[in-house]
């Protein structure tokens, strides 16, 4: 696998979640191509010096989310037919997570939906000027 996963065990984010997010991000960015093989649970555990069960848990979550598929005896592979749709789905997922954090914070500061809507529009206008 060309992608080098890294984990920060000292973070408050669970390690399995770090792996899940990194693999999702890598597939969204196309760094991980569909059909590409992921390292075995043991190999990744040794590479990162983390518990094999933690890696296995991350792989289970990724499989449940439809990002990878595992066939016994062969290993784990990035799912998808290589079409744009699946890549977009993964990208949307990553974006939504980032967005959710921002919206939660905004709401807790007392902004209303209409206020947040306006903020989003401003940001979108800046990044997609041609679609204004």
């Amino acid at each position, binding site marked *: 696998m060309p992608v080098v996963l890294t984990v920060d*065990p000292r973070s408050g*984010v669970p390690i399995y979640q770090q792996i899940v997010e990194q693999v999702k991000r890598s597939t969204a960015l196309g760094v991980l191509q569909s059909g590409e093989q992921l390292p075995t649970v043991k190999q990744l555990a040794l590479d990162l010096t983390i518990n*094999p069960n933690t890696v296995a848990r991350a792989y289970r979550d990724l499989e449940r989310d439809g990002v990878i598929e595992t066939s016994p005896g062969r290993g784990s592979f990035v799912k998808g037919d290589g079409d744009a749709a699946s890549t977009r789905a993964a990208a949307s997922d990553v974006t939504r997570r980032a967005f959710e954090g921002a919206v939660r914070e905004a709401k*807790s500061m007392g902004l209303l939906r209409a206020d947040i809507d306006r903020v989003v529009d401003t940001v979108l206008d800046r990044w997609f000027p041609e679609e204004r």
Partner: protein
Amino acid sequence: MNITVSHLSKKYGSLAAVDDLSVEIPAGTIFGLLGPNGAGKTTAFKCMLGLARGSSGGVTFGGKALAPPLFESIAYVPERDVLYDWMRVSELVEMNRRAFARFKADRAFELLATFGIDTRKRARALSKGMKTAVAAAIAFARHADLLVLDEPTSGLDPVNQRHVLNLMVNEAARGATVLFSSHQIGPVERAAERIAVLDRGRLVLEGGIDDLKSGRKIVEAIFPNESYSLDGIAGDPRVGRIDRSGRIVRVMALDAPSEIVQKLEAAGGTGVRIIDLNLEDIFLYAVAPASATADVVEGS
């Protein structure tokens, strides 16, 4: 090999070194036993392995009570003074080869070489860290079903420390159960799947590290003025503790932090945010006397 510890106790006079410890260690996990110095980690290991006289309670290994033949598949490495100072490293390997049918001398020499240890040396000529490494290398060559390692990374440089952790991962990947203790958070946070925290002989926290990290969060809220009520929150069993500092409230959520967020918002809190806790924070909250941490929070 799973381990079931039930109501394990060991008293020195009136002082309980291990106080009614019950814990289940599932097979194939790397289980970290954390605790401040003198928390009873070493004593707990000794009690489990039948090495402490006068302990009460029960321990089973893979459903079986401890008996000498079981030690074929249990590798125990005490914290220090493991090696006979007057023996050569190669003789120590030979000693293990004779004592354990499953011991692989080749593997031991291979591991010793990767640790950079001259096997012709006598144990007394080795540094503290090297002695730890020798004991570890020999244990990892045992091909055991259960490894009980007391402070396996103490005194090791970062490279060899990582090496030992990697060997633990390797054992777990093979299906073995690894139970190890540490007073340092780092190695446990990295390699362990589950932890138990001992404090003054008592089990104060137990669970999967990732589950603890997902569940345990600090939820912070700011209230518009100091007259606010936390009635619905203070009584919630998922709330560990509440620290107030003027208009700022920090709530330790033991589980389901998003629901605590909702409750705080309902109570009129603004700027509610979730602060992640790493294992060190969780550990400190578990072992520090409540007042001590509260003081720190109040003072900040």
